[in-house]
């Protein structure tokens, strides 16, 4: 099988990362896949009300929002803590010289 020009599996690194994170958490037993699909379907339906989703970045934006909501509801990842860490990563990128690996201070 060789479609002439296969689509890239993941268009962006973060798409792959949020996908893997979700599959891994399902496999560790944090949630059942049908629960995930029901929540994800609801997010897609909500997002699809305001615009037609193209199945690319908007699809993974819905995916990420679903995962954040699920982890918040399960008291696994509190949104305030997540936002603090997001800001910390942003600061780490902005304060790391170009060409150097980016680390998060613990």
């Amino acid at each position: 099988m060789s479609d002439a020009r296969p689509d890239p599996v993941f268009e962006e690194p973060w798409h792959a990362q949020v996908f893997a994170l979700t599959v891994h958490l399902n496999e560790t037993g944090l949630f059942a896949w049908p629960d995930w699909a029901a929540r994800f379907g609801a997010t897609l339906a909500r997002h699809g009300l305001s615009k037609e989703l193209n199945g690319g970045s908007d699809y993974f934006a819905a995916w990420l929002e679903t995962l954040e909501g699920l982890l918040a509801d399960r008291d696994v990842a509190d949104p305030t803590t997540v936002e603090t860490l997001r800001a910390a990563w942003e600061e780490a990128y902005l304060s790391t010289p170009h060409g150097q690996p980016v680390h998060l201070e613990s």
Partner: protein
Amino acid sequence: MRASLQCMPHDHHDHDDPHALLPPEPALRVKALETLLTRKGLIDPAALDEIIDTYENKIGPKNGAQVVARAWSDPEFRGALLEDATKVVADLGYFGRQGEHVVAVENTEDQHNMVVCTLCSCYPWPLLGIPPGWYKSDAYRARAVRAPREVLAEFGVTLPADTRIRVWDSTAEVRYLVIPMRPDGTEGWSVDDLAQLVTRDSMIGTGLARQP
């Protein structure tokens, strides 16, 4: 591509930029989740890398193509596949990570089968890999059930008017694999040669097998 907490900055065209290139906002939110879950001991970053590697490099439509080509060549295998595809594909090592069932649906002169997931994007990952963008788009998800003939035409597929089209709506529990019709002129071909004719789209039902 790696999903580690320690990321090299991207290449950057603007060399006057003094700091590492800032990833897009959602990427930072994913990193935040990864950091938090790693600190809590809930995830293993090596497992994330393994999952990405599997889906990028090891799983793809070639798995499904082997199954279809065998079904074309081996009547006993075909019978078993139509009877209980979950068991047959598991025996081949193509097990579903989410414990879902697989159902094989066979195209004939009378009926063409096509697969969609109207809820989200349920798809037979072990057999076809990650779905293409169009499978996840609203345009396909909304119209595959309502106007399958039009959708097929957009994919360049025109079926005889008397061929019935059956659209299967995937769920988290049940995923479908279409067995396309075997092209004429392939009598006596090996499974590997036949598999070359089986495209991804033909196993979703938005395409036909290649002609030899």
